[in-house]
Structures are given as C-alpha cells and as structure tokens.
C-alpha cells in the first residue's frame, strides 16, 4: 500500500486516505507513502469513507478535480491521470472507470455475470447508461463532488453514486480502465454474497 501511494503522489500531490477503523499497519503505511490520513473514530464502511475523503478534499478551495481510487493497487495511475485530463478539457462533470470498454481486464466468470446484472439493474433504475457498475476509479469536478452526497455507508454506494448522477443531471462519461486483480485485491474484493446486502441496502432506506 505504501508503494501504491508513493507512486500516486508523484502524479497527484494531494492524497487523502480514510482510515475506517483499520487494525493493521495501513495508517503508518499511508503516512509513509506521503498521504494525509483522516481517521474515522469507528468503522463505518467504504461508502462512508469515500464521502469523508471527498468532504475533506473539498475543504481545500484550490482543489478543482477529485479522484476516488482503491488503495489496494488495482487501479492504474495512467488511467486516473487520463480521466482528469478529460475532465479538464471536455464538458463533463464526472468520469467513471469501466473495465468492460476494452479487453485489458480479465475478471472471473461469476464476477462478470454479477457485474453485468448490476449494470442492468442500475441502467433500469437510474436511467444512467454505464457498462460497469462497481468501479472504484472515478474522477469528478467540484460540482459533481458537491452534488453526490453518499449516504450509503457500505457497498451500495456505487449504485447510489450512479443514481445521483441521474438525479442531478450531471454530465457523465465512461473511461476504459484496467483493473489489476492481485491476490491482495482479490482477497479484499467483494464476494458475490454482497449482492444480497447491496440490494437490501438499496431497497430498505
């Protein structure tokens, strides 16, 4: 994780890591890598951590663009950089990474089916047309970051973000990204069981 952040700092000087009640040495790793760490006093979940990170970043008035990415090294820096470049030059509020726009990413068979089902669900329920439902790599401007207030503390935040893009009529686009499935990210990644939990969180608000 330290290496992930150390490389990222080269491209993006301001990196916020949210410590969501971790018990391992990842806080020390993040600080050693050169990130600012914001610490949740209790464990709240990934969606809550994203929202905290965005709120912290938005406090810097000079910050124009905001990138969310997972700290386990599954996202490529060059993809993130290209997304910010597009935000700066195209009339867009938010760019979402998609692993299905080119052939670089090789997800497992079950994972692929689950993700495709989630895409269909989101397209129907939000009216926003995307090809990948749960991609953690996103780049947005201040208008989008302010409009998207994540209330889903756990994994359902990805669907919530898509829904808010539709509700706030944000100008969105997708960008092909490469997900590197390392053993670490696979172990930390979502199990298919989470589909049940996500649907539950979305239906019972």
């Amino acid at each position: 994780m330290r290496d992930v952040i150390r490389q990222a700092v080269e491209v993006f000087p301001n990196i916020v890591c949210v410590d969501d009640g971790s018990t391992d040495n990842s806080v020390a790793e993040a600080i050693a890598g050169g990130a600012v760490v914001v610490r949740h006093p209790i464990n709240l979940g990934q969606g809550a951590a994203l929202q905290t990170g965005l709120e912290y970043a938005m406090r810097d008035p000079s910050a124009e663009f905001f990138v969310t990415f997972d700290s386990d090294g599954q996202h490529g820096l060059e993809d993130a950089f290209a997304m910010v470049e597009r935000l700066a030059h195209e009339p867009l509020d938010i760019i979402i990474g998609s692993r299905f726009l080119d052939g670089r990413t090789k997800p497992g068979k079950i994972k692929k089916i689950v993700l495709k089902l989630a895409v269909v669900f989101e397209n129907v329920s939000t009216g926003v047309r995307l090809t990948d439902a749960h991609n953690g790599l996103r780049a947005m401007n201040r208008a989008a970051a302010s409009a998207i207030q994540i209330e889903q503390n756990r994994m359902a935040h990805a669907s919530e973000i898509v829904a808010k893009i539709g509700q706030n009529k944000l100008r969105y686009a997708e960008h092909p990204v490469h997900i590197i499935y390392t053993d670490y990210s696979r172990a930390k990644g979502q199990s298919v069981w989470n589909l049940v939990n996500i649907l539950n969180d979305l239906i019972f608000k």
Partner: protein
Amino acid sequence: MDNQIIIKIALIAALAIFAVFLMLPGSGARHLALRRLSMIGLFAVAVVAVVFPQLINEIANAVGVGRGTDLLLYGLIVVFIGNSLAASRRNRHMERELTQLARAVALADAPGHTGRGSERR
C-alpha cells in the same frame, strides 16, 4: 371453516400495512404517535383478553380460527413482525446520525490543508 377467509384477509392486510409503512418516508412525530397508539391498543387488548378469556375464543371462532390461543399466537406474530420492522427502521436512522457524527469528528481531527494544488482522495 369457510369463514377462515376472514382471518386470512386480516393477517394479509396487517402484513401489507407493514410493507406500506416500510416504503413511506414518514415524519418523526407521526411515527412516534402511531407507535404509542398501537402500544395502548395492545395493552387494551391484553386486559380484555385477561378479563374475558371466553371473548377471545368467540372472536377466534367468528373469524375462522379454531381456538382463542391460536388467535393470540397469530396476533403475537403480527406484533413481532411489526416491532422488528420498526426497530430496524429506527436502527437505520440512528446509523445515519452516527455516521454524520463520526465524520464530523474525523474531519475535526484531520490535519489542515497544505494547498499543493489539486486535491484527491
């Protein structure tokens, strides 16, 4: 046993009301009032059942349930489900407030901005 339809309709209606209740956003005051009213109603029913045990049997027969104890069991199940739904709803509400509190604490404890240009998570 052809009047069993009455108890079926009553039970399904009760569950349907719970489902609607779950989907409605609902104001705090109305929910609290409804909770208290149903609590009072529950007490009243319990008192009546204790004072006139025969009455429960008669009601049970009238709606197509064999014995009064069966009717009480059905009632208990409905109340239990309703209570579980109300509790989980309250739980979600509290979780949302806890999140806001925890986030405020996290941001208050966070280091200040260095202002090195663009900002990331």
